[in-house]
């Protein structure tokens, strides 16, 4: 096995990809920088959530509203989706250094990831509706405002990520596995893992902490 210089954090395309690998240095590194900014945004929502965690203002609290079963399903969907997105990137790295390789596995793993993402969203929306029915609307208390906006922000990110993945699949099918879609897949995968990381924070701080 040859050792190549790693140009940016995470899985690299590798020298076999030639120019695409070299150009990825700037493209993917830039995306990492953007994520640093994004994680600060999430950090602010977490901070406000924690400071208002007790401000239920006489309204319903975590124990009245959360369903751990549904949250477990959501976590499962998201984590498995992270694995399948990793499989998509591995397929990209090993099978697509030449442009003529068949695309079906790459597309398959991407679609599986996005389907799991949509499964997550479906569960989350159902939860939100359920919570609203139990009187947990965001305008009820500061805690509910913080809860809806933090979890909603994450959900919005997952929606954007799903849309992005579908755009990539269309692009790969229409234009082939060319440089821009390689970089897009790499960036998207980093984004997808990042959303898992944020979800683990939400799972721990919002749901587990709320139910103990």
């Amino acid at each position, binding site marked *: 096995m040859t050792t190549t210089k790693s140009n940016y954090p995470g899985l690299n395309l590798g020298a076999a990809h030639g120019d695409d690998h070299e150009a990825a240095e700037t493209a993917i*590194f830039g995306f990492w*920088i953007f994520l640093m900014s994004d994680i*600060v945004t999430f950090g602010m929502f977490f901070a406000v959530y924690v400071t208002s965690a007790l401000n239920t203002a006489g309204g319903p609290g975590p124990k009245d509203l959360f369903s751990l079963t549904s949250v477990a399903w959501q976590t499962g969907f998201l984590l498995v989706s992270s694995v399948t997105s990793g499989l998509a990137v591995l397929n990209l790295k090993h099978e697509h250094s030449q442009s003529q390789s068949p695309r079906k596995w790459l597309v398959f793993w991407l679609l599986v990831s996005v389907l799991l993402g949509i499964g997550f969203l479906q569960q989350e929306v159902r939860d939100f509706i359920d919570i609203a029915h139990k009187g947990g609307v965001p305008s009820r208390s500061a805690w509910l405002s*913080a809860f809806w906006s933090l979890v909603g922000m994450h959900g919005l990110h997952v929606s954007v990520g799903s849309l992005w993945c579908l755009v990539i699949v269309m692009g790969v099918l229409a234009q082939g596995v060319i440089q821009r879609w390689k970089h897009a897949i790499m960036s998207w995968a980093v984004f997808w893992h990042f959303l898992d990381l944020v979800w683990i924070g939400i799972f721990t701080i919002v749901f587990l902490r709320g139910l103990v």
Partner: protein
Amino acid sequence: MTDTLTGNLTWDSIMIVKAIKDPNFNTIITANAAAMIPVGTVLIFAILTWTKYWKKLFSEWITTTDHKKLGIMYVIFAMIMLFRGVVEGTLMRINQAGALDGGMLSSDHFNQLFTTHGTTMIFFVAMPLIIGLMNFVVPLQIGARDVAYPVLNQISFWLTAAGGSLITISLLIGEFSTGGWSNYPPYTGKVINPGVGPDYWLLAVGLSGIGSTLTGVNFSLTIYKLRAKGMRFMRMPLFVWTSLCTSILLIFAMPPLTASIIMLGLDRYLGFHFFTNDLGGNMMSYANLFWMFGHPEVYILILPAFGVMSEISATYAAKSLYGYKSIVAATMCIAVLSFTVWLHHFFTMGQSATINAAFGIATLLIAIPTGVKIYDWLATLFRGRIRFTTPIIYLSGFFILFTIGGLSGIVLANPTIDFQVHNSLFLVAHFHNVIIPGTLFGMLAGIHYWFPKSFGFRLLESYGRVTAMLWIIGFCLTFFPLYPLGLMGMTRRTVDYMDPAYQPYMFVAGAGALCLSAAFVGLLLTIWRSIVHRKELAVPLGDPWDGRTLEWWTPSPAPEWNYAVLPEVDAIDAFTLAKERGTAYAPVDKYTDITLPPSRYYGFIVGLLAATMGFAIVWYIWWLAIASLTGIVITVIVYGYLPQCGHVIPASELAEADESWRRRARAERGISRDEETAVSNQGLACPDLIPTP
């Protein structure tokens, strides 16, 4: 009642209609200012049509992805907004001069004035100035052809412009916030303030904030990855260092602002309870979030100015910068410390004395690296062969005034003293005393310094010097009286006062504000007279000031491709070294084709749609907001699919342009520093060789 088609927008929302229905001094002043928008727009359209400039405007400016042109557009945008900011500031000071027992302005009008003045000056003057200068200078100084993401850079600019257009439109349609530039809830919440003012603030600042975040990503990436061969970190020019720190601050400091804007927006639009008085809301979260952005923001604004000061002190003293490493270390220290002091903006808002003390000490610490820098620049000038040009006048003003401003900051950093003078004019004097001599003087000095590189001719020294003196004197007259006024107990943001002892100081400040207005006119005159005399001022060979860094190593104005052959670097002052060796203009063996980013419409479309979306949200026109947002998403997706081929410049064209420049530089005699401001300065410098100690 909200109409589906037009939302909350009615004829009465338009300021001019309001003034006709209820004519009084305040509405007429505002209506006149508001009328400048349609009149100005019609005038600009007429001029563009008359001079047949439309096509050129689109093909060369609006669609450009060239970092130099974007930089110039940022600065022009900042100048337009500066006009508004200066007029508002002057209006407030003149009102105050006669405001004993009630002035000419109503309190609501006055509140809008200080809010728009602050918001405009910070977000739409200071930020575009620094980002504009970074755009123009950084890629040139690191020896690159453009930034890492040219289209993203274009989008950043048009988002900033979208924010600026919203704050401008608020003058004509509706009103602006009255909550100060920090827009504190619960005062700006829906319960107390149901009007459109705070919504305009949220959207204007929010959109430009997203633009600034993207700029931070783009420029830190550019500086990390696109430096010239051999330019290690410790060989980067100081302006690049400070731009890097500013970019890093933008990445980390803008998100708290975005978060606070989203939360306040949710409070106002969807009845959330983040910062309300009831149901558990806590406005302290807003104060913390806002100043977690707000304090680093101060350093976002000042660090590039420090970079400019470093460049001009070395260049105009003809010496290499004293203590390069210590300035770099100080810059980094300031960048890190800037995140540890935000609480000093609200010492009086209920923390324990221990917490206040900790933040007070952290604040005092920042004075140390700042002091290091001031001494380094002084030492750079020491025994240098200084030419007393316009940038050096700004630098001198900066040295004295910025130090005074910094010292008053140290006074305020002590919580016990802050309790006495907080919310008084002492504070207003302090922050103007750092932002004007710091950021504004730095940027004006930078504009003088790099102007020949952007347009190919120098700015007139005669006008420039008078203007610089006007800024300095105007600043002193306007803001020094505010220190004693603050100590006498006059609070900030008050429309009138009852103590006659205040009035003499207010007269002086009012006169100073007129002087500052004259300085702004002087700035415009400097540019206009220089354009008239551009033939005599031309410096086509590119190095009018005996520059030390890479950007002077190319013709002026800088060609579209920046460098025909990318430079290589083996020292801090790479260009000076090449001149000393006599190799600066040696012939080049081989030219290769260059691919440059082509013109694109994406940024303009995204900016236009974002402005429309912002306006629609302010007025609750939901169909339009959703349509614009969808439009933005579609534009971004289309950008993903369309071919991204560049625009190729053939080697032959490059060779022709570059060789003729080099030939001419080798043939000409060059000028000594004594002739720097004379017609004979064609941009070829005979270096003053002061041996480096």
